[in-house]
């Protein structure tokens, strides 16, 4: 169980290396990284992510446990940042390890689908013309129905 919710940036390369190094009998490691997107036309000054301390960690741990019930996994790592960040900064990452790649791939997708609409994070985008909360997409909720 490795869930980290932090304001500080993380080193994607170092985290991935450390994660892979720890997998003794696993044949596959899948990682996904979420990056702050710049906005078309209206350049992003910064994104600020708010979260619900306490519930965030519980929700992420629950999502990890749900994934472990469905797939045969080695380690799982979820890192998610909050606070201000600039375009191109890494927001979050998940890593999954399994003996064969299918479990690691599917579990990583499952973690991402649930993390998007069941972990209490809210994104606000600041541009020269103002600030707006990012609206949840219907497609994100629909994505959960396939699991």
């Amino acid at each position, binding site marked *: 169980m490795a869930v980290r919710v932090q304001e500080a940036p993380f080193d994607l390369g170092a985290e991935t290396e450390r994660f892979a190094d720890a997998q003794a009998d696993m044949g596959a490691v899948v990682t996904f990284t*979420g990056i702050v997107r710049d906005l078309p036309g209206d350049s992003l000054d910064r994104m600020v992510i*708010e979260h*619900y301390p*306490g*519930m965030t960690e*519980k*929700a992420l741990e629950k999502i990890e446990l749900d994934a472990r019930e469905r797939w045969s996994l080695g380690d799982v790592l979820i890192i*998610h940042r909050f606070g201000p960040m600039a375009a191109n900064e890494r*927001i*979050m990452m998940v890593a999954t390890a399994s003996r064969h790649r299918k479990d690691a791939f599917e579990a990583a997708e499952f973690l*991402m689908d649930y*993390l*998007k*609409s*069941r*972990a*209490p*994070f*809210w*994104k*606000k985008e600041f541009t020269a013309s103002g600030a707006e*909360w*990012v*609206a*949840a997409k219907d497609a994100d*909720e629909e994505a959960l129905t396939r699991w």
Partner: protein
Amino acid sequence: MDVLYFAWVRERIGIPREKVETQAATVADLVEELRAREPRYAAAFADLSALRVALDQELTEFDAPLAGVREVAFFPPMTGG
């Protein structure tokens, strides 16, 4: 109980959390009480379909009972990842 607000709900109401004394039986009853307080609450709770609620840090529905609950949180749909 403690009532917490996040994201634009927090901005509309103007505070991140407050203590509320209530006899409300369900979340929906509590929302009615809050709406009746001031226009900023009425604005924040105008459309419940745009809101989510957690009781003691577990997502739930607006018809959930409040008995024994210590912490209620209102927020918009989540946008993690």
